[in-house]
């Protein structure tokens, strides 16, 4: 369970990105965070992956207050989260296979496990025939699928997707969304941040709508309400 408790994040000199947010995300949930650019979606994610610390309030994972993690513990926390970004963020000098293997290597996985799991993940995202391609040899949709496979490699409890379809065409967009829903069915929390009306209206899951750093709506079967 993830819990944001009265969280405020302010950037100097006078920008308040999140304003006294209270939000609970339960295990196995699929939550969309909707909002325009600058509404505070990315800040919410940065606080969750401990890229930033809240100015006020706390962020909990179960009973663990993330603010109390010291620098040594941060890598261990990040290995429990899978991250997907709009710009994919693959390692350009590594092949698709190596990008996925890297996520397992950082956690000290055994070679045998890596050799067993990576092909399975590549099959899951339907890219087994492109395992030796470098990112620049893959299309946008393919790169994002590699990124998803990488995010799943260390079997995370939470998958965070920050505008994952922002750079993709319609067909690829829905492939990625279906993949995320499949991952959620395997009991992983999925947090999807997006400003895409069609996606939010199409998946019929919980929607948390942010505006100017505040939650203006939290609906279990939400629709996109912003114009």
């Amino acid at each position, binding site marked *: 369970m993830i819990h944001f408790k009265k969280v405020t994040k302010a950037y100097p000199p006078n920008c308040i990105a999140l304003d006294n947010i209270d939000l609970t995300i339960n295990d196995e949930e699929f939550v969309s965070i909707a909002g325009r650019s600058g509404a505070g979606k990315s800040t919410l994610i940065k606080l969750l992956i401990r890229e930033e610390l809240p100015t006020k309030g706390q962020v909990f994972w179960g009973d663990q207050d993330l603010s109390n993690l010291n620098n040594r513990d941060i*890598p261990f926390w990040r290995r429990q989260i899978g991250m997907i970004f709009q710009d994919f963020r693959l390692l350009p000098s590594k092949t698709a296979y190596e990008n996925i293997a890297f996520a397992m290597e950082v956690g000290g996985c055994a070679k045998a496990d890596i050799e067993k799991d990576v092909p399975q993940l590549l099959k899951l995202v339907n890219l087994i025939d492109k395992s030796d391609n470098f990112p620049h040899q893959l299309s946008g949709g393919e790169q994002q699928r590699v990124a998803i496979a990488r995010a799943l490699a260390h079997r995370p409890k939470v998958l965070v997707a920050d505008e994952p379809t922002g750079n993709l065409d319609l067909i690829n967009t829905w492939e990625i969304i279906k993949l995320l829903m499949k991952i959620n069915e395997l009991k992983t929390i999925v947090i999807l941040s997006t400003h895409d009306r069609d996606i939010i209206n199409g998946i019929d899951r919980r929607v948390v709508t942010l505006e100017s750093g505040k939650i203006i709506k939290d609906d279990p079967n939400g629709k996109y309400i912003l114009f």
Partner: protein
Amino acid sequence: MFTTFTRIIKSGCVNFWRNKWLSSSAVSMMSLAILGITSLLLVNVLINSLTASLEDKIDISVYFTSDTSEDKILDTRTDLIKLSEVRSAEYISTYEALERFKEKHKDNTVLMQSLKELDNNPLEASLNIKAQQASQYESIVSFFEQDKYKKIVDKINYLENKAVIARLTSITSSIRQIGLVILLILAGLAVLVTFNTIRLTIYSARKEIKVMKLVGASNWFAKGPFVVEGALYGIIAALISLFVLYPFLWYFSPKITAYLPGTDLFYFFQANIIVLFLIQILVGVSLGTISSLVAIRRYLDESNGEI
């Protein structure tokens, strides 16, 4: 632990190979730096042998009165060489002095003739003294100013040579100082250039480092491969500069010897090749790893930067 270590090494080597262009430019910059530092060391050897040969030309002669016995002079010599300033003290007997005189002036018939007309040897026995350093002649001369020597010493040619010795001393010491300053400045430049090249290679990988951190890599797992790459640059650059220097010295050393007799750089290089290579490796590897470590630090800082 061991798995992580081998993964870091492997990843460093793979990165080195995949970024061939970047690696080769970094290696060539570093080769130049190491080559520069080694050449400066060799120039320093040249300067030292040059100043040593200049200093070797400086000596003083102490002439003893004709009635001084050989034993007394040799006793004086024994006392003299106990001084730490004295490098050598050669005894030249009256007979030897005469032989040298004859040899030197054998073409001068007038001198030879007049020498023959003399009944006895007019030349005095002497001690030919060399000091460890040119600045020490003053104190050697003061040794002979003790009362017990005053009676037997006829003259010391130091006073005649004093001006020349003083000038040579100041020339050799300023050559040494200037050489050292130039060496330090150029070595500093070489280090800066290498550091900046490596900083550029790491700058180009800054996003990669951020991604590694986001995927959950510890600091060492993220920076390890770059440090390995830096060390690899150093090792290869050391090898290159050795292979460049060897034929260069083989060709140019005899030419340098022709100008500065008594210096043989190629011989020096061959005799010290292992030490020189180890110095080059040491310089290269430490330059590479330290530059990488310093350059990567800002990209690993948790509080610094957006994702």
